């Protein structure tokens, strides 16, 4: 019985390594066909043509820009919501608001994707038309904003927890010195909660990088090395999907490129997660809380 339970526990390890190795082996196969160096620094991505090239830089840049937009939306709103819930709202209000925000986290991403493509993207196009600026129907901005909304609860929920874990004695000490509430929050509470807030942000970042459906549905397919958020751009996840739903041979570089991109995604999100966990652990040790 004990052995059975232990093997069950081993499955989770097996899975992690399964994901790693299944990606790693195919990625190695890819890099035997194509240069690793060109993959991470080349600026042309043109699978499926005669002289196909696999330079992922424009894909990375698109991913970076969309993720950046998402965090610019999610961080202030998520943190602001967390501060409101933990510092200003009454218990009963907070108990109502938190599940409401968590609905945002429970909505399937395909639904966000539809919303981004059908409602937000056209709205952005018409909005910029007013100023005579052309925006793409697959703009990075549309998917970035919607992705940002999706990760608001990731940031707000964990931040709310860490802010509330900051001992009340510190707030009282500051208020007793004649500080206003906002001064206390900004100068005392938030710096104390900072490791947790950074940790939450990294989790949000990791979620944004790995998000697929929103960008598949609302962002572009075109690898586009540009800073303009109103242009269409593509991301790592979009290209993974694109490479695998096409009709290429499994052993072709076209298909295998998905695994090379997947390997990068795996490595980056893994590092983000490890750092994030380490930060939270530090916070917990400092304030001796174990409710997080």
């Amino acid at each position: 019985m004990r052995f059975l339970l232990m093997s069950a526990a081993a499955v989770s390890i097996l899975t992690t390594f399964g994901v790693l190795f299944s990606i790693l082996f195919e990625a190695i196969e890819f890099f035997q066909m194509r240069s690793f160096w060109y993959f991470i620094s080349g600026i042309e991505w043109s699978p499926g043509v005669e002289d196909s090239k696999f330079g992922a830089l424009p894909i990375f840049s698109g991913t970076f820009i969309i993720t950046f937009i998402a965090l610019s939306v999610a961080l202030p709103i998520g943190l602001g919501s967390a501060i409101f819930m933990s510092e200003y709202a009454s218990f009963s209000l907070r108990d109502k608001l938190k599940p409401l925000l968590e609905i945002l986290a429970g909505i399937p991403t395909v639904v966000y994707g539809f919303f981004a493509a059908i409602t937000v993207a056209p709205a952005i196009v018409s909005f910029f038309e007013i100023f005579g600026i052309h925006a793409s129907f697959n703009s990075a901005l549309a998917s970035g904003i919607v992705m940002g909304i999706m990760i608001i609860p990731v940031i707000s929920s964990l931040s709310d927890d860490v802010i509330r874990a900051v001992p009340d004695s510190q707030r009282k000490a500051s208020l007793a010195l004649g500080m206003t509430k906002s001064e206390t929050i900004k100068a005392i509470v938030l710096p104390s909660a900072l490791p947790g807030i950074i940790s939450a942000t990294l989790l949000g970042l990791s979620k944004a990088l790995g998000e697929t459906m929103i960008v598949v549905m609302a962002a572009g397919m075109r690898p586009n090395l540009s800073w303009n958020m109103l242009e269409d751009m593509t991301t790592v996840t979009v290209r993974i999907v694109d490479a695998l739903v096409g009709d290429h041979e499994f052993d072709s570089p076209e298909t295998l490129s998905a695994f090379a991109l997947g390997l990068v995604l795996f490595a980056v999100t893994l590092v983000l997660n490890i750092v994030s966990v380490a930060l939270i652990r530090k916070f917990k040790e400092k304030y001796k809380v174990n409710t997080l």
Partner: protein
Amino acid sequence: MTNEIKDSIKVRIRDLNLYYGNNHALHNINMDLHKNKITALIGPSGCGKSTFLRCLNRMNDLIRSVKVDGQVIIDEKNIYDKDVDEVAVRKRVGMVFQQPNPFPKSIYENVAYAPLKHGLIKKGHHCDDLVEKSLVQAGLWNEVKDKLKEPGTSLSGGQQQRLCIARTIAVQPDVILMDEPTSALDPISTEKIEALMLELKKKYTIIIVTHNMQQAGRIADYTAFFHLGDLIEYDETETIFINPSEKKTEDYITGRYG
């Protein structure tokens, strides 16, 4: 009331009642607190000492269910008047807590934080001077002058408490409230803080809650005995300890309960 007496009174409390929701925690307190004296509040636990203390700098306002009635008059002004800002009250009535609670910042920042926010000083050598002066007054300077950049939380418990006192006097208050400031400390640290209070009363009016009657006897000029939300007796410390007029006070002093 002659002017002299009036001048020697820093805080006058009139018909003060406090409710936590339906719990009537303070009953009709009337009391005059003397300037540049140490007043000790004693009484069994749960009798409302801390609650009373928090009325003096309006910290009770932070508790949602609290309702305060009556007047706390500091410098001829009722601090519960509509035109009084509780932030300004707390600036002039500082508070030191039972558990030392330095901010998780450097020793220097712990002291400089509030004066900077209040705009009492600007960053630079004025600030350095104020930090030094406050730490000297709190009797901590010699111990920390070489490690001002280290976190306040790295100090020992007694040092932390003196840092909290330094932090409080850096704001230049008139009144300092202390809620059992030594109950979490060892005897040597306690002794240091008691000595410090005797020094500080030259400049400040000090009100201290203590459950240690010897402490009240050692340092307090006046002592008030609270019981179940009532102010039973308030007089010079000597009188309270040697010749109390209330039976309850005597029982408590002689250790019959509490």
